[in-house]
């Protein structure tokens, strides 16, 4: 058998990743490991307020986003709590590869936060309407690390910025706990704020630096 072509490899990657993303929303809190995307060598960068040099975007997160984009949908990206301009290199990188349009925060189908801090931008995203709740946005947070939680956090972990989330809701038997590093504590409040009027709400994915992914659909209640 011939080795797969680059095109075939991309199709396979997006099919597998789509399946993982679907599974993550069906089983909130379950940690799924995404595959490294085929374009890891040519990763785009963004600029952070905290670092002098440009930072590569989380490739797993970007791969997941690209899996869901096509000409029918729009996206927005934020870094350091600010929406990126349509002319930003990262935005153009994505538009060229997906054909998706750059949206406004109030109408975008997908939102991508290069870091674990939206500074409240999450609450600007569409939550759908009662007649068409599917017109809501899906948001990706790039965090540092995601693991299953056993027992309470130690003081040391707490000071290192770890958060423990206790999840309940459809798709979770009783409760499920996960630990996240690199997510601002206020984000939990923002996420909760977007899901106060079910069926309206924003579905959220957390993806860490080594490709571990967790889905937090609008039906999941988060304590943490």
């Amino acid at each position, binding site marked *: 058998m011939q080795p797969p072509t680059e095109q075939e490899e991309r199709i396979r990657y997006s099919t597998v990743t*789509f399946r993982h993303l679907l599974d993550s929303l069906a089983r909130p809190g379950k940690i799924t490991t995404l595959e490294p995307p085929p374009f890891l060598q040519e990763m785009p960068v963004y600029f952070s307020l905290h670092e002098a040099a440009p930072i590569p975007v989380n490739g797993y997160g970007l791969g997941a986003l690209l899996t869901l*984009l*096509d*000409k*029918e949908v729009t996206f927005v990206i934020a870094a350091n709590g600010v929406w990126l301009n349509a002319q930003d290199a990262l935005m153009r990188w994505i538009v060229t590869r997906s*054909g998706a349009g750059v949206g406004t925060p109030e109408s975008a189908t997908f939102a991508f936060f290069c870091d674990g801090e939206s500074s409240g931008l999450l609450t600007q995203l569409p939550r759908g309407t009662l007649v068409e709740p599917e017109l809501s946005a899906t948001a990706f947070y790039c965090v540092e690390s995601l693991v299953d939680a056993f027992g309470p956090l130690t003081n040391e972990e707490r000071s290192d910025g770890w958060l423990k989330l206790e999840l309940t809701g459809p798709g979770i038997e009783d409760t499920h706990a996960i630990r996240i590093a690199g997510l601002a504590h206020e984000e939990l409040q923002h996420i909760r704020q977007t899901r106060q009027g079910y069926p309206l709400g924003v579905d959220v994915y957390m993806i860490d630096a080594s490709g571990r992914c967790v889905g937090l659909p609008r039906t999941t209640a988060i304590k943490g």
Partner: protein
Amino acid sequence: MGYVAVKGGTEAVLNAEQLVEYFRVKGESEPISVVQIQEQLRLAVDRAMGEGALYAPELAALALKQSEGDALEASFLLRAYRSTVPRIEYSLPVAGARMRPLRRISATFKDIPEGQLLGPTRDYQLRLLNTLLTHESSASTRAYLAQIEAKITDETKPLVNFPKVIEKMREQGILAEPPEQEKADADADPYDITRKALTFPAPRSARLQVLAQGDVGGMLTFAYSSVRGYGDAHPTLGELRVGHVPVEVAHPVTGEAVEIGEILVTECEMVSRVQSADADESHAQRVARGPEQPKFGLGYGFCFGHSEVKAMSMAIIDRVLSAAKEHGVHGEGGPTANEEFVLLHIDGIEASGFTAHFKLPHYVTFQADISVLERTRAFHAEKFAAVREQGQAKTARTEPEEKGAEHV
């Protein structure tokens, strides 16, 4: 009881899946290849593409193989696959006049520009079983192909683009212009029924999309009913053409039209007389409207592949619905004139899916039905008993009086 109703049976389900595969191959005949289906069951492939709403002959052939020839199942497989494919670009409007035709006929005029072209058709064959086909072999098909190839000479006239028959009618001024609303709709972006739920009244672009992916059996029924008596359609075939049309997209940088391939399609225009004046219209209204010549109205049909019955049915339904809309008489001219009724029931995949879902366990629903039935019975029994009791008491009271009355 808990969730007994919806759990269990996994092993049986898995076995059933295996068994259906077993039944497909248990005869141990030579496996049929996808190419064979694509080439020799052409029309089944075309139907699956049309109803699956995805132009992909090879995948449609595969779907037919997988579904053992079940047309609805094959189109369902294609429709499901379509929903997973990213949308890269929209094509520019495809013009039927640019078709490279295989077949083109008109029933309105004998002499049409560039003439009638019968092409591949069974229209003139007797419906007799051809038993020779049971002995068909590669050698016999090769010999037949050689015979046909021998007929192709250098003088064979190359095919040209055929002008549309209805354009000629338009020039003569006998074809009615579409109503203003329809013209406005045509200028706007087409409604996308795959992204937006259908609402009524639906724009014509939505109607044509629903019909183009409709189930041919259902469409035939609606169209036939309206021409046979449950409606007032008297259509004539303006033109029916089958052939390849080029598909173009706008170049992402230059914006120029770029041809990306061609697709085999069937296109049909039906014409029928337009009622120029409403029967209920008063004389004053008619005068106010000014002198208007009676004209013909147009119905349009278009579908993937070679499917004449479907394109014709679609054109008839389109005409009936347009006429109903123009005169504001939904459903009064038979069921086909009811837009909502037609468009919501014409999709084979939706209809078969809904019907098939009745095979799923409805144990809990049915338990609820039974308890409602029992309560209703108890209620009726109680009511009946009460009525009977009352009746007996009344009879006991009134009988002597009646007897007494007789004596008066």
